[in-house]
């Protein structure tokens, strides 16, 4: 399935190895075994990522929306975060990840959550509410081109595509 991902054979094999490590004994025989979100986010690559839950949810194909991943979802994830994935695909997934309530746009609530994610959990690091308001309004000022109070995908991609270091930082490698 190299045609479908940006990964090389070695990477896929490695991913498979890592993935089977996450599975429990009896699951290893199953082909479409799912790894629950709790175990996925213990991966060292994701452990300290503030968006780990979102990432799992975005890439999960589970019916119950519990964020569990099959191997293919897992590959999908790695592919999108791989070195060679295009800016377009990366920005698309980034948008999905930032879109916390899955409504297809980034509105104020999403942005607020995003800022909170970025500034960490600790209380002293948090921005005050006025700062937050200021920040969000600034962001909307910049990137909300049609001035409808939200950032939609194309606006988001527009902003992202100009950014010099998005591609280099939106990466996860096993």
């Amino acid at each position, binding site marked *: 399935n190299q*045609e479908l991902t940006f990964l090389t054979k070695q990477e896929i094999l490695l991913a498979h190895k890592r993935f089977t490590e996450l599975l429990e004994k009896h699951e290893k025989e199953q082909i479409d075994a799912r790894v629950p979100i709790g175990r996925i986010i213990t991966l060292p690559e994701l452990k*300290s990522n*503030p968006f780990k839950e979102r990432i799992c949810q975005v890439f999960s194909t589970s019916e119950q929306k519990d964020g569990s991943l099959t191997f293919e979802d897992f590959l999908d994830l790695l592919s999108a975060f791989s070195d060679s994935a295009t800016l377009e695909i990366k920005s698309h997934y980034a948008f999905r990840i930032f879109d916390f309530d899955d409504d*297809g746009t980034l509105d104020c609530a999403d942005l607020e959550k995003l800022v909170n994610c970025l500034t960490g959990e600790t209380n002293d690091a948090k921005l005050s509410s006025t700062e937050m308001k200021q920040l969000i309004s600034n962001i909307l000022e910049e990137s909300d081109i049609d001035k409808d109070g939200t950032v939609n*995908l*194309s606006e988001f991609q527009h902003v992202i595509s100009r950014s010099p270091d998005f591609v280099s930082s939106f*990466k996860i490698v096993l």
Partner: protein
Amino acid sequence: MLLHFQYQTLCKKIIYICMCVCVCVLDEARRRSKNRRAKAQRKTKQVSDDEDEEEDEDEAPRKRGRRKRTKPQDSDQDDEEDKRRVRQKGAKAPRRKAANEERDEESEEDQGKRKKGGRAPSKQEKEDQNKEKKGNVKGKDETNKGSEKDKKKKNGKQTSSSEDESEDESDEESMSEGEIAALKEQVEEKKKLIATLRNKPWRMKRRLVLLKEAQEFVEKFEGALGKGRGKKLYAFKVMMTKKLIKFNRDFENFKTACIPWERKIKEVESHFGSSVASYFIFLRWMYGLNLILFGFMFGLVVLPEVLMGLPYGSIPRKTVPRSEQDTAMDFSVLFDFGGYCKYSILFYGYYNNERNIGVLKFRLPLSYLLTGVGIFGYSLMVVIRTMARNANEGGDGGDEGEFTFSWKMFTSWDYLIGNPETADNKYASITTSFKESIVDEKENQKDENIHLQRFLRILANIMILCCLGGSGYLIYFVVKRSQDFAKMDPASLTWFQKNEVEFVMSLLGLVCPPLFETIAELEDYHPRIALKWQLGRIFALFLGNLYTFLFALFDEVNDKLETEQELKNATEWAIHEYNANYSSYYNTTDVPPLVVNPADAVRGPCWETAVGIEFVKLIVSDMQVTFLTILIGDFARAIIVRFLNYCWCWDLEAGFPSYAEFDISGNVLGLIFNQGMIWMGAFYAPGLVGLNVLRLLTSMYFQCWAVMACNVPHERVFKASRSNNFYMGLLLLVLFLSLLPVVYTIMTLPPSFDCGPFSGQDRMYDVVMETITQDLPAFIGTIFTYATNPGLIMPAVLLMVLAIYYLNTVSKGYQQANLDLKKKMKMARDEEKNRRNNKDSTNQVMKDLEDLLPNKSLIPPPTEEDKSTKMKPGSAGKGVNLQKEVSLAATNPRGPVAHPPRARGGPPGHLRGPLPGPGRGRGRGAPPRT
């Protein structure tokens, strides 16, 4: 064994997965066809019934429909989609056309977001048509049908229904004629799709796999079909392309497997973020470059001399002189690259000036010169190419500062960070950067006490200039003194006196950067600007040191040249005397040549070797200092902090000494200057490149280990961003600066008369002249003389200057055009915004206004113009970015005025059913023009 077994099981599993997928595909295909047949029978039924059934049981098409959807939306949109599709289905055949048009318009409207939305229903419809056709024409076989359907699915959106109908007819009548061409086309499309499949952010890997497998399936059938029609060649071609693709992929895999240290770098990357990793990537790149240079040097110069040249001890230049022979094997001498080292292939002096050597008649001197210069040429080419590529990737350049906040927001997280500590630092730095930027925004520049600040900055700069001057003088002084030392008896000198120059230079490189950093505190710049200043200053320091060193060296070389001249005269005189004596003594004219043991021969100082030795010593001491700094500054510090922390009065880890950070800029600059010295020294010491390869190799492993073992992530995590090209720019500058002295010496200084490949010549480049006049046909020689004629060179230079001027002007023009376009886009955007805002309330007013405006017709062009003119600068080189803009502009479904506001305001609603929720409405209303 065990490993092998594991691998096998793994492979089996993967194969199994693939097979499963295949089976799924088969299943689905079967189900689909069954459905179709059932549908055909049921065709006469009420449409509404059909609808229901469609929704309930027709799983397959729906799945496919979802697959088609490039951008998976949330489920409610899916529902919406279904409803729409159903509604469309409900429409009778005559109405279908209208519906289609309707939909086209509509899909135009919300194209950006829901491109696939339009496609899915139309495909559905086509399927319908297919089914009908099936009812009529039962004769056609399954595969044909499937492929056809797929094809249409592919053509999907842009073909309107009318076309479809005509196509249907043609299909029914002339299946055989157009079929082949269509098939081919379709196969091409499929291939394209397969190639670009991964570029699409579709949901669900499974779907992707299914789609791909289905395509391959169909393709296979196509091949069979083609063969049936006697197109064996075609089938063969298909097969070959498949093989080729597979081979390419394997090759790609192989290539990535061959990249060294990939895992190591990724490990570092995951701990320290992309900035530290960028240093190691740079180091690896440098290693590759040096490896190639080493290949040149070794293959074209060193190896021929070793294999075909005279062996050691045969001629004076290859022999250790008698006076030095006692100590030639002493370690201290060897370590200073004296003794046997000095008379080895490592250095210039060893090479013989014989024109051809060995059975191959290898022209060593010529090869030496060309390699020496070629190394520069090659490095220049590589550096510039890399820079150009980086510039293309990073592209852009333009609107910085336009999206500062959004960038901070959306792109500040480095997803590579896998280390909690780094993550904490990152959180902190992001928070501070947010706060900073807010503050910046609030009070753009609060210039309190600007005089004090200015004064401090000037003071800091003066101090730094003093430092630079001081260090330059110190080096000059030391080099001068070392020349005095060199004239004294080497036995009476201490180790320090012998290695003073290198020692002082390394020390300066070690002490000055932190000093600069301390001074820079005074200036109170923003950290990013401060970093740039710091880099610039260190750069100036290194450069100054290097050049002082060089000038001092030149003094020495001139001294040596004088002594050499004397020596040469003395030797000639001695030989002359000898000849005269001999002939007078024996009274004969054929004098046997003077036989002297090569070790006893009188020899000149051979300044080239001396320069080479200086460089090698410099490199070696630099290497030692670097490694020692890492060992002491990082490793020892880490150990002390780690273990003394248990019994210390304050927290060492958090407090004063703490762990060291990885100093990216310093390391990169060190690497760059090291490379500069290699470039400069390589001509005089061919072994230097090999030495450097070793050095880089060890430093790769050593630094990787050190950074993982004893460094902590940065407080402020800088991004790799565009600094890569910044480093490259520095490298280019250094390359150029190191090119200068080498070329100067080649062109102006006379080579030593008794050592090196150019001995006996007036200038080094005479080798080239000699080859041209003697070995090449005469006409080339004349051509060469014409070409080097000043009369020809001057116009050439003039032409180049003119070309540069012209290109410069053109690029300025493009920049201007870019700016204009940007302005235009902004205007158009504003226009659109106004229109939307005013759509309902002031629609009439706006229209009136537009009527009144004389340049009403001027407003529509922007989209057209945007597209056409944007292509121009795009082709001028800023490909990536502008390409994007073009595509963005193209996806913009409507020009600002192309549809007057009213036309799209109303009607389509009745087909679209209940108006979408607010979220979606927004999404749709927003044109994807960005």
